[in-house]
């Protein structure tokens, strides 16, 4: 599709500005955000399992133990990005709306359109995994249960934090799937990880622009506690009784506390680089 088609609906002045900037490249020349970072090495910490456990491996079509399948389906319900999950498509609809309503310019909207395209690619990938596990589940509407996906997004900064922090959570989980005992998940893990990392970098790119100006940084500082506490909560309770089962079956490499700590260290460095004060990690938390 030509850029001129993509740009339908953008004001004529904005469209001409994008075209004159040489915006024929994807996402106004910035997409995908992950390439430059991964070219310098693996940006995410090692999340491989450090404890002794059975060496399970299950591929598509294998008979799955009941406990294993229950945990795998639970994981896929939380992940949510499935073409048959109408609530996921609804979330994507809000992303279009937010971009239309709050994005500062046409370049930002073009970047967000690349984000949407990539998330819909994930919806196809996870749909194919889901449909081979359970066709009924593949078509089931499963709204995101975690409140982080439902926080109000009323400013462009809200949306930028949503991507920087919530998509980063997705990147960390996908990083954890590199050694998953479920082969189809292992196969897509690197693609999903780098894409989600790129979505986080997209949010960071927007935050960087906002924080380069004093009033914008003040707004980001005011909104940070709301998103930071939700992001840390997304990893679940540190004492979750299911975690040892996930690890023993090879569906996760590390526990909730460990992955949250690694995530926090990474996110804190990035936030500090924006000139933001990192909130107390217990402030506003619901799931410790």
């Amino acid at each position, binding site marked *: 599709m030509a850029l001129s088609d993509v740009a339908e609906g953008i004001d004529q002045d904005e469209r001409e500005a994008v075209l004159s900037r040489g915006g024929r490249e994807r996402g106004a020349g910035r997409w995908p955000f992950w390439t430059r970072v991964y070219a310098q090495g693996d940006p995410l910490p090692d999340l491989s399992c450090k404890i002794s456990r059975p060496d399970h491996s299950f591929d598509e079509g294998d008979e799955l133990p009941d406990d294993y399948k229950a945990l795998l389906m639970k994981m896929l319900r939380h992940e949510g990005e499935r073409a048959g999950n109408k609530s996921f498509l609804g979330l994507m609809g809000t992303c279009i709306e937010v971009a239309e309503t*709050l994005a500062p310019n046409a370049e930002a909207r073009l970047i967000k359109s690349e984000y949407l395209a990539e998330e819909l690619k994930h919806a196809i990938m996870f749909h194919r995994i889901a449909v081979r596990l359970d066709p009924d589940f593949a078509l089931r509407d499963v709204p995101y249960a975690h409140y982080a996906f439902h926080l109000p997004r009323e400013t462009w900064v809200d949306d930028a934090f949503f991507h920087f922090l919530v998509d980063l959570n997705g990147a960390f989980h996908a990083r954890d799937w590199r050694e998953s005992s479920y082969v189809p998940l292992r196969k897509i893990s690197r693609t999903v990880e780098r894409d989600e990392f790129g979505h986080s970098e997209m949010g960071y790119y927007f935050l960087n622009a906002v924080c380069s100006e004093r009033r914008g940084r003040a707004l980001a500082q005011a909104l940070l506690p709301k998103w930071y506490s939700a992001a840390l909560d997304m990893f679940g309770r540190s004492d979750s009784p299911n975690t040892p089962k996930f690890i023993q079956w090879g569906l996760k490499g590390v526990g909730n506390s460990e992955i949250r700590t690694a995530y926090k260290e990474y996110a804190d460095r990035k936030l500090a680089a924006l000139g933001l004060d990192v909130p107390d990690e217990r402030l506003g938390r619901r799931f410790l």
Partner: protein
Amino acid sequence: MSTIIEEIRAAYEPFGVAVEGVATYGTYYRLRCARCGAALGCIGDRLLPGMARELVDGEFDLYAAGLAGCACGHQAERARVIDAARAASAGQRFA
């Protein structure tokens, strides 16, 4: 989810923000300026009980300073009606 949606509507009402019916499938709702009808953003209905009020009240200063809310100024005006002193202080803080 109707209880949570009622909580969300009640939390936004004092600030002149209307919570429309379902914006996208099932779980997400559009926020609009109650005066001019401009779209302001979105919210989902899986917030925890009590969270909506806390979130909206937490953005009082941003509405008052015009950093959140409609370009028509309705939410900033509402914030001044709710607490003029706090709104003035927020305006100075974010000037």
